[in-house]
């Protein structure tokens, strides 16, 4: 992420202490500080950077200097004063008091941070209380200078106690030190923030790249698995069809008479072959559904005949187990939009399952009714927001049993391929765990939904909803 690198690395920033004053403090804040000092004590001050540039000032030069500047000799005196102040370079943590040729006094304070000189603070001009006499240099600076005028201006200068000046200098040094420290701290904190965010971003990017690689690999594996299943299923089906066909012919006596024991054995071969074929068909359906190549022939389909047919088909199985099997539904129920043979497969599977997991004297009930379901708004393929509130007419088919039930936690997973609620080898019920995953995919292919509810007082209800009409017919 080179584009995100800061100008200076954190390492450089934390190790560095060669700052300029301007980097750590704003000029206007400094001016305010100096101005407040001027308001309190009438003492002017200036802050210079280490390269001599003026950064902030408060209070103007004295009237005495203004007068002197109008005279040639006075100008020389002022110039000497400025040079004296300029040439004063105190060490860090020190200050120098200067008395200039004009008699005015200045204090020059080293502005230091972390043991380095960052600039200078010049406090003044001022006079001490004891400075009563005008210095000789001032009196003789220029023949045109009026003594009375000089004396007036001298009196106008700020006469301060030496102690006050010392205190002001200490205060200024402490305050500026704190301001610089806070500035440095804020600079480090904000850079640390930036660096931390960058570091987190880098870490996440790395993790995300690793995950992406793993995801691509899994996708490849999944594709391989589907291809493998499809190929194997096809290859298995061909010889199996022969096994079933030839065993059928043997049973029918086409190849000559067989005795009862042989017939019984051939019957077992034929029956197990048939079971194997069903399983392989299921696998094929699943791979087709997963790859999206299963074609549905959707028409206006009445649902009750399908349910009655299933009851008719499975009634012997249910009776053998002592389970009561029935189907109910209003005769006037509208048709649904779907593939009759695939829907039959769905409900046959659910009903078979229900019978399988219902003990003797239990019941399995199939029912169908019309319902209206709110359309999910986040569905990208669904209608636009303006369709909000429109309910879609659907047929709800419930397959209710009084069996062992499915716990809340298991419910979302039972639709996964090969998933078994009880996957222990000793489980009572057989099956490859393909049925419900095929059901789910077939219902999905019908734009329908399937979910599991608790039956009261015990058992499970599989609730399947299939749309009555195609979506495009709406509105």
């Amino acid at each position, binding site marked *: 992420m080179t584009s995100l690198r800061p100008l200076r*690395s*954190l*390492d450089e920033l*934390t*190790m560095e*202490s060669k700052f300029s004053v301007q980097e750590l403090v704003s000029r206007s804040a400094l001016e305010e500080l100096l101005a407040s000092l001027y308001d309190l004590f009438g003492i002017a001050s200036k802050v210079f950077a280490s390269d001599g540039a003026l950064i902030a000032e408060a209070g103007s030069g004295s009237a005495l200097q203004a007068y002197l500047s109008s005279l040639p000799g006075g100008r020389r005196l002022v110039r000497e004063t400025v040079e004296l102040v300029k040439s004063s370079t105190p060490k860090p*943590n020190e200050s120098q008091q200067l008395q200039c040729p004009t008699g005015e006094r200045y204090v020059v304070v080293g502005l230091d*941070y*972390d*043991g380095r000189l960052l600039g200078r603070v010049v406090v003044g001009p001022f006079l001490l209380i004891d400075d009563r006499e005008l210095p000789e240099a001032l009196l003789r600076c220029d023949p045109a200078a009026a003594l009375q005028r000089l004396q007036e201006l001298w009196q106008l200068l700020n006469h301060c106690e030496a102690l006050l000046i010392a205190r002001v200098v200490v205060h200024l040094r402490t305050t500026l*030190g704190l301001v610089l*420290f806070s500035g*440095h*701290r804020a600079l*480090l*904190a904000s850079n*640390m923030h930036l*660096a*931390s965010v960058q*570091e*987190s971003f880098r*870490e996440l990017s790395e993790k995300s790249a690793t995950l992406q690689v793993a995801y691509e690999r899994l996708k490849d594996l999944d594709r391989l698995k589907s291809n493998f299943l499809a190929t194997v299923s096809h290859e298995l089906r061909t010889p199996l069809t022969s096994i079933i066909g030839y065993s059928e012919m043997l049973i029918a006596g086409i190849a000559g008479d067989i005795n009862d024991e042989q017939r019984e054995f051939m019957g077992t071969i034929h029956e197990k072959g048939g079971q194997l074929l069903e399983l392989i068909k299921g696998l094929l359906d699943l791979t087709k559904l997963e790859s999206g190549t299963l074609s549905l022939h959707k028409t206006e389909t009445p649902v009750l005949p399908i349910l009655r047919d299933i009851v008719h088909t499975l009634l012997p199985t249910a009776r053998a187990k002592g389970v009561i099997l029935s189907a109910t539904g209003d005769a006037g129920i509208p048709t649904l939009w779907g593939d009759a043979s695939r829907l039959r497969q769905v409900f046959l599977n659910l009903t078979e399952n229900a019978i399988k997991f219902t003990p003797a004297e239990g019941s399995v009930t199939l029912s169908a009714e019309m319902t209206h379901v709110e359309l999910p708004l986040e569905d990208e393929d669904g209608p636009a927001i303006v369709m909000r509130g429109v309910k879609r007419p659907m047929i709800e088919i419930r397959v209710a049993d009084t069996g062992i039930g499915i716990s809340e936690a298991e419910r979302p997973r039972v639709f996964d391929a090969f998933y078994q609620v009880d996957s222990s080898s000793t489980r009572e019920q057989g099956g490859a765990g393909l049925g419900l995953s095929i059901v789910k995919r077939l219902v999905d292919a019908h734009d329908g939904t399937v979910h599991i509810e608790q039956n009261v007082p015990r058992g499970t209800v599989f609730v399947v909803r299939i749309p009555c009409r195609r979506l495009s017919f709406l509105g």
Partner: protein
Amino acid sequence: MQLDFSSRELTIKLVYYGPALSGKTTNLQALHAASTPDATGRLMTLETRDDRTLFFDLLPLTFGSERGLSVRLKVFTVPGQVIHSSTRRLVLQGADGVAFIADSRVAETENNAEAFRDLRENLKQNGINAKQIPLVLQFNKRDLPDVRGEAELAEMAAQGKEPVYLAAAVKGTGVVDTFVALLHQTWQLLDSQHGLVEKFGFDTSAFFADVLVKLNDPRPLSAVLSSRVGKKNPEGSQP
């Protein structure tokens, strides 16, 4: 380390590492309190509202140029909480030496080990050889009950190569020892890599004497170094 030839100035970065609440910041506060004002600046802390270190603490220490080279030390702490791993890694960048502050309490043994693994990992990520970087261990909080026994620590310390010091940072004991031992080890490595004594005519003994004076410790360097526990060489090593 940063070496400025023109201003004859050496800047060394030392990092105090360790599990949360083991007393890293307290170590720095004690160092700050012990040192003379001309040697140290303000202790900078970047902390959360509940006084836990957010990014780092920074204690600057400066030793003058009378020995041909002025030495500036930047002593950092890292935030100990597990979630701040990336911050620890950032602060560890360019470290010249590391003091690992462990909590002596028996219950903290696993946390210490976890933090030490974290240190190793973050050193590696920063491209620093964990075997070569100067490292000093401190078992802090000796003033609390339920701490691991001194004999046990001494025995284990004797088996490892890193010097181990005992401390109660809240009382200031063992703090200078740990710091000086780390600085001494770091100095020896930097000198062997960069020939500082030779190039600048640096007087190492005088430097460490000055460091101890500025940390208000009256002991000679050898006494400070030999206060470690489980030492193989009871005399300590003279620079």
